[in-house]
């Protein structure tokens, strides 16, 4: 594939960064080129050396072409696309439209221990929504998106079965 690809794009939700292949260790900013290096040592762990400064870097997740990178303490999510897959994404988003609502389904049968949000609560990705006890284990159910809680269908002591809609969230853009 390397022979055919001339360019790759790293996409975040809002921006697109293009890199020519083969990938070099220099990045051009304006008229100047700077060298970027991936390094590792015992004292610092893995880091990026750029313009004589060390930036801590961690790969939080890497799956197929999706990467979550903690760069200088801020986490960024990227998908790497080829020019063709980028066009495909655009075509699909037209066809599929935007997803507005997120239903939080019970992942397994169990009992609700605590509900941590109410209708109207604004919630961020990763924040806990409720505690579900199942198989003697307490599971914190976290919110997968940023948004606002539009409906809470459960309360403590209520039992749920798999795929019961426990909460509904309106996704904020």
């Amino acid at each position, binding site marked *: *594939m390397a022979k055919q690809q001339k360019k790759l794009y790293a996409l975040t939700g809002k921006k697109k960064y293009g890199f020519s292949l083969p990938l070099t260790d220099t990045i051009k900013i304006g008229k100047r080129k700077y060298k970027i290096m991936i390094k590792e040592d015992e004292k610092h762990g893995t880091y990026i050396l750029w313009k004589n400064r060390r930036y801590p870097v961690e790969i939080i997740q890497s799956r197929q072409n999706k990467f979550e990178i903690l760069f200088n303490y801020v986490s960024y999510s990227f998908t790497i696309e080829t020019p063709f897959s980028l066009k495909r994404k655009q075509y699909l988003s037209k066809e599929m439209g935007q997803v507005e609502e997120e239903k939080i389904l019970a992942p397994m049968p169990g009992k609700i221990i605590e509900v941590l949000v109410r209708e109207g609560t604004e919630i961020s990705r990763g924040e806990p929504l409720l505690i579900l006890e199942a198989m003697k284990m307490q599971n914190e159910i976290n919110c997968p998106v940023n948004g606002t809680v539009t409906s809470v269908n459960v309360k403590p002591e209520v039992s749920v079965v798999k795929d019961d809609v426990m909460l509904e969230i309106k996704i904020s853009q």
Partner: protein
Amino acid sequence: MKIKNILIANRGEIAIRIIKTARQMGIKTSVIKTAAEPSAMYLALADNVYDDTENVSEIPVFLDIERIIKIAIDSGVDAIHPGYGFLAENPYFAQKCADKKIVFIGPSPDSIYKMGNKTIARKIALAHGIPMTMGSEGKIPTENEAVRIARNIGYPVIIKAASGGGGRGMRIVTREEDMSKMFRLASNEAEKAFSDPSVFIEKYIENPKHIEFQILGDTKGNIIHLGERECSVQRKHQKLLEEAPSIALNDDIRKEMGQMAVKIASAVGYFSAGTVEFLFDSEGAYYFMEMNTRIQVEHPVTELITGIDLIEEQIRIAEGKELRYRQKDIKINGWAIECRINAEDVQSGFSPAPGKIEQILMPSGENIRVDSGVQAGSVIAANFDSMIAKLIIYGRDRKDALANCKQALDKVWIKGTKTTLPFFRMLIRNPRFIDGSITTSFIENELTGYHVNSEYEEMLAAWLATWLFVDENLDESNLKINFEETKNLSPWLLNKRITRH
């Protein structure tokens, strides 16, 4: 009496903090090893370690009064320092220590009890003419009573749990229609969190600053204050950054509020270290909120501007010694800022990010103090708090402190888990923070982002992601497949496989 050894009924950075001062005073320290963190940093620094890893009780040891007393007696210590949190403000614990003739390094059980119950505290404050928000007095028996009280006070009001804080059992009510429901919700939550459904109602001050005064008192009745701290940088009632002194106070107000703080502490015959909290509104009026009868997380900023070691003072006071300072001896010098660096993901609502610290390099220098309970290799578990380190910065004045803080934050190097560091780097550059105008509602209501957005850095991260993708998938040289191996079977096996049928 002289205290010769102390059992520290706590862990993490405060345990290390207490050990440090105790060592300087020539006092031996004992700590408790738990199964949850058997290789915690504080264990290596104490003189004695009591191994509690076999404990199968459902109650964690730091909340288990009987067990701690037993450990104290078995270890033959003179005194117990409860640190902050856990049992630090539990009057029964303090009483039990007294019963067993173990010195409790803190105030009397009576003052802990009185100040611990918000309704009693308010009554005392009222009786002594301490400015307070208008509020309910005594128990609120019914929802209807709650509505009546609220109507009297005037909306907006806030319902608070009488026996605890931290946001639990707390509800802000803006309209009468919501009052009954909120009263019920708050009471239930308070019951669940503090085993006591009692709540009280007070006027809700919008966008206040949180100003607290450090109190020191001895058993001879001398009480002084060591100036104030401003803790308005809060999120969901959790403090993130504190400074001393506060840019909102001038010398007159400081003197007045300080006197009020001393007054209420005197009203309960307070001794040891304590903190009186006030809300400070946009008009410069202040209202007593509550008193915390323990040493607080943010005590270092007071120590830096007064030059006084609060833990040392606590120990001296516990020994029965008289305070060495009068109010006029307390001088405020310079400015201090403390950043609480926690293992939390600021991009996901500050959700806890437990993990193992791979590397941690904290800045050092003249104006820098680091109070930490973790080192490289430490695991930040979900059981305890998510604190990694407190970065405390000193400066000649606020401007200088801010500049030093900015520099120091840029030198922090932590790897292994997400931290609140990007939040502080953003905050230190935020104009509202710089001009000192922020209030307790700032973080939740006015900030749109919790970290600096650097396009530059995003691009570098994008390059890295692309590099990883290429390395994994497109770099053919990376996957050298040895096909010879596939055919390199022992004759034994090859023969068997071929003649299988």
